[in-house]
């Protein structure tokens, strides 16, 4: 039997990973799920390891998920947010990271508004680096928790039809998923207002662009709704929130176009009544809270697999 190992120093992106890497992380995450249901939700595996969560952008879910994952593995987790750190005093990212490196952390989890920030620091520090979202580029741990959720409900990826609907251009979640899903054999379609499509969709061969949400939803197994990033709408990309909700929002009648047993996903935080109606978000097709539960397991798997690298 081939030995299954995760042989990378860092987890910076889905792009460049192999199918085996994804499957190993998902299998490991599946085994970790059980720990969160125990009376004592903690194992001693990463005892003595220090994990720094360095967040330059706001986050509730991802940051707390990484922190809980670290603590359930007995690692010491330290959270640093840009708003309360030396960043506000003008320190550069590299200086901050070099100072943190001097305190000998084992893993640095970083979220940053700049594309490539995790890649930049990965080359500068001994610590393993995990990308928790870099600009509009990638959010690998989110894609992995999406994959785990899909696999739990659909068993296999081969032949699965997945629709990603919303602001594709600004979504690192969409980018990571558009790399990951085809790698595992799923068919991906995307739909968004023309102003919200990435300029270079040819970077994602095999991903089909649909003209309408109706076309995208027709007969799909999985619907992934993306958040409209209202805070990033400094340039007007659509005329009004109401119009967006009417034209692209997922409501119960639109969802009927999908397969009967389709699942509905959302990376959060949701704008209820905009990209997704409350009836759908809380309805029987929704697996949104499963995604959050799986987030902890996936991040435990990532920290576990990276934490085993001594060099």
């Amino acid at each position, binding site marked *: 039997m081939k030995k299954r190992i*995760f042989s990378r120093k860092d987890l910076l992106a889905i792009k460049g990973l192999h199918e085996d890497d994804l499957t190993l992380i998902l299998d*490991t995450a599946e085994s970790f799920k059980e720990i969160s249901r125990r*009376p004592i939700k903690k194992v001693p595996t990463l005892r003595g390891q220090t994990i720094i969560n360095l967040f330059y952008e706001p986050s509730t879910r991802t940051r707390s998920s990484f922190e809980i994952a670290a603590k359930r593995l007995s690692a010491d987790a330290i959270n640093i947010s840009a708003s309360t750190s030396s960043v506000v005093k003008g320190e550069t990212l590299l200086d901050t990271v070099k100072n943190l490196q001097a305190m000998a952390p084992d893993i640095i989890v970083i979220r940053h508004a700049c594309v490539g920030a995790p890649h930049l620091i990965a080359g500068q520090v001994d610590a393993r680096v995990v990308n928790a979202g870099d600009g509009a580029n990638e959010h690998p741990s989110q894609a992995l928790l999406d994959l785990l959720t899909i696999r739990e409900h659909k068993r296999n990826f081969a032949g699965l039809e997945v629709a990603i609907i919303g602001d594709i251009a600004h979504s690192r979640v969409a980018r990571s998923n558009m790399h990951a899903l085809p790698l595992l054999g799923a068919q991906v379609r995307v739909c968004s207002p023309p102003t919200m499509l990435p300029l270079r969709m040819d970077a994602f061969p095999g991903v089909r662009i649909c003209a309408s949400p109706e076309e995208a939803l027709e007969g799909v197994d999985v619907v992934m709704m993306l958040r409209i990033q209202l805070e990033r709408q400094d340039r007007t990309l659509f005329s009004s929130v109401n119009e967006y909700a009417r034209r692209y929002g997922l409501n119960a009648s639109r969802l009927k176009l999908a397969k009967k047993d389709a699942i509905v996903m959302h990376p959060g935080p949701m704008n209820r009544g905009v990209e997704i109606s409350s009836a759908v978000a809380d309805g029987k097709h929704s697996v949104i809270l499963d995604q959050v539960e799986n987030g902890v397991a996936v991040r435990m798997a990532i920290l576990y697999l990276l934490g085993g690298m001594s060099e």
Partner: protein
Amino acid sequence: MNDRKLILDERGMAMVLSRMAYEILERNDAHGDLVLVGIRTRGVFLAQRLQALLKQIASLDVPLGILDITLYRDDLSHGTHHPVLEKTDISFSLDDKIVILVDDVLYTGRTVRAAMDGLMDFGRPRAIQLLVLVDRGHRELPIMPDYVGKHVPSSPQHKVKVRMREEDEHDSVTVSYTDQGQMD
């Protein structure tokens, strides 16, 4: 050099397991509080067979749990890669239970130490008793089995191999001599 010696064949393993099932019943009065926990991988198969035997002999329904000890190993910081993690499945409380911990080979005792740490996270058992198919000696920790299928005197250069038909082609225990010895 590789001379392989057969210690137990299919019939031998069945007899040994049957004897140990009786020993479990003999040694414990509170049969209703017994639970079996098998250590992955072959400890689980052994525990399943014991579960069937206890049902057959005494009409007992003994719950069975599966334990993967990977997360509790003491050598995780030594290797370069963490081993693949398999599922642990103990869907009942261990509070006040008599846990029969089952493994195939007892060697250094480090696996059992890790397993006991794992069990404690599922509650506070009244007692943990250790059952092994083979005790080959060379303990590195103060751990003693309660039920032993077969004592197999060996040197560290010997390789003890347990095969079970759930995963291998047949049931057997063999000992062979290798230059490298065996990691356990």
